[in-house]
């Protein structure tokens, strides 16, 4: 559940004996990346739309519980049925999208705003020991997987969405710092940076004018993948009862509540589970598709 290291770029392989007339592997690869991008964007779009619509309209109020309707199956009034308190499951799934996205946005923002400057600094500094120190600190953070740090935060600060966002964000810093440093090292060895340095441009100016635009693509890919991991971590934490607290709807919490009724009302687990999986799948596919488009190290290789 903790960070999955960035997957190695798929190498271009000379495929032996491609059937005549069929599209060669590079074209195939491109088509798959396009498909990833489109499907990923659609799934992410679906979750975003659900969350946005939930602010303006939900079938019922999130807090509305009608005990007489408890554990009802799907019907015209409740397309997804109701839970053990008689709350509308569709309403809760929609509002749960808010929390999933909020945790993703805030934690990715934390990780990006801290990790990218650290990584760029570690890649640009000419004092080798300083760069090494930053990366050692990074390794230290890697010893604290997101979910573990989130559990610690909930023990110290009390359970809640805020500590969960902070913990997942901090635990995601190393991923951004690594990607940013690797990209920066590559850019720094280029001739235009050499020219900029010869023209006596200051390091911050070089970072803004040359480094950031060039590593932007990789950072966006990392953000998409981190977003998926953040949703997973929040769902796990809320499932443990240590994340988002009732009465705020969250998918992980819904899964936890559903456990007592698995035998009689399995759909109570299936709906939030389906949306967790769709959201994570969406951000992962989006990351894959974007990687192919944006990562300069892949350009021209396929």
């Amino acid at each position, binding site marked *: 559940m903790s960070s999955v290291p960035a997957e190695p770029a798929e190498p271009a392989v000379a495929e032996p004996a491609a059937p005549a007339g069929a599209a060669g592997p590079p074209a195939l690869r491109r088509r798959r990346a396009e498909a990833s991008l489109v499907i990923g964007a659609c799934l992410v779009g679906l979750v975003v739309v659900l969350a946005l619509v939930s602010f303006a309209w939900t079938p019922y109020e999130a807090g509305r519980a009608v005990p007489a309707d408890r554990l009802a199956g799907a019907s015209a009034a409740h397309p997804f049925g109701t839970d053990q308190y008689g709350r509308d499951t569709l309403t809760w799934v929609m509002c749960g999208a808010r929390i999933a996205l909020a945790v993703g946005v805030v934690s990715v923002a934390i990780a990006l705003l801290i990790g990218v400057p650290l990584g760029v600094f570690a890649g640009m500094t000419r004092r080798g020991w300083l760069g090494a120190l930053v990366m050692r600190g990074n390794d230290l953070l890697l010893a604290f997987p997101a979910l573990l740090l989130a559990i610690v935060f909930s*023990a110290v600060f009390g359970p809640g969405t805020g500590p969960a966002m902070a913990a997942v964000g901090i635990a995601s810093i190393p991923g951004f710092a690594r990607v940013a440093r690797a990209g920066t090292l590559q850019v720094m060895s280029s001739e235009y940076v050499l020219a900029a340095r010869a023209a006596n441009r200051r390091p911050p100016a070089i970072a803004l004018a040359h480094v950031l635009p060039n590593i932007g693509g990789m950072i966006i890919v990392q953000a998409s993948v981190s977003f998926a991991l953040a949703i997973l971590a929040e769902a796990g934490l809320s*499932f*443990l009862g240590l994340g988002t607290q009732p009465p705020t709807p969250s998918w992980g919490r819904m899964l936890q509540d559903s456990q007592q009724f698995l035998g009689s009302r399995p759909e109570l687990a299936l709906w939030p589970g389906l949306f967790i999986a769709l959201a994570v799948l969406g951000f992962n596919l989006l990351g894959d598709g974007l990687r192919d488009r944006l990562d300069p190290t892949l350009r021209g290789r396929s």
Partner: protein
Amino acid sequence: MPGFLLNRALQYLLTAAAASVIVFALMQLLPGSAAQVALGTEATPEAVRALEAQYGLDRPWPVRYFEWVGGMLHRDFGTSYVTGAPIAPVIADGIQVTLIVVIASIAVALALAVPLGALAALYRSRPLGAVIGAASQVGIAVPSFLAGILLVMVFALGLRVLPASGWAAPIEGLGAFASHLVLPVTALALVQAAILTRYVRSAVLEVMGRDFLRTARAAGRTRTGALVRHGLRSAAIPVVTVAGVQLAALLVGAVVVEQVFVLPGIGSELVRAVSNRDLVTVQGIVMVLVLAVLVLNFIVDLLYPVIDPRVRRGA
């Protein structure tokens, strides 16, 4: 070689020491002492002071930090302020269950991922490759606790062939032990296998482009034969790295899966301690988990020279 090992070992020791400071410092962040937290907000100041004195919490933090670390080196994790019982046996009992589940899971995951990933690479432009790729993409998106819930629905509540929850130690009978192990291990292993399959596929693809495989093909080996005979060792390097990282992730993921199956593992103890506001126990368990992550990464580092002769020669 010995220099490389010593260097890495020293680095890991330093990281472990720094991690222990972080874990300890996090627990000091709370307004009020651990005694206050354990007793709750209604406790009288006298009661809090008495508990603080009893456990030495009134002493300065460096003293308490070194006492905690010194104790851990002697397998003494202190005493819980909430239950009044020593913490070390709780951790020892829990980690046994968790390790059994985690090690079985990574073994199953690798047994699935290596052949599937290699197939996905060999058949990359045919339907089989696409199917494996899509299945692993979906598998990654399913958190292991959700996989656990789905497995319980099908195999415990639907087909009634396996117990939905609980644990049996091996001495209580191997049949009971195995039947309680199947679902949690499957839940963790399926998700891990999905992640590892993608890395195996990438690694095998990378190797397939190398000259030595073309030479082997030219020498008359089939594509699969050349890959199995010459390619797999090379492909194993990135896969072992990821498997090490994933083993650590599994350990933490097991925390959640233990809740699904009500397993008496270290994760259940951790969640119970957090709910009881038992900070000393939380501190001990978190430190053990962080150490486990570090040890696993160290073992992966040690494996490089075994798999890759170039590292052995110090290239």
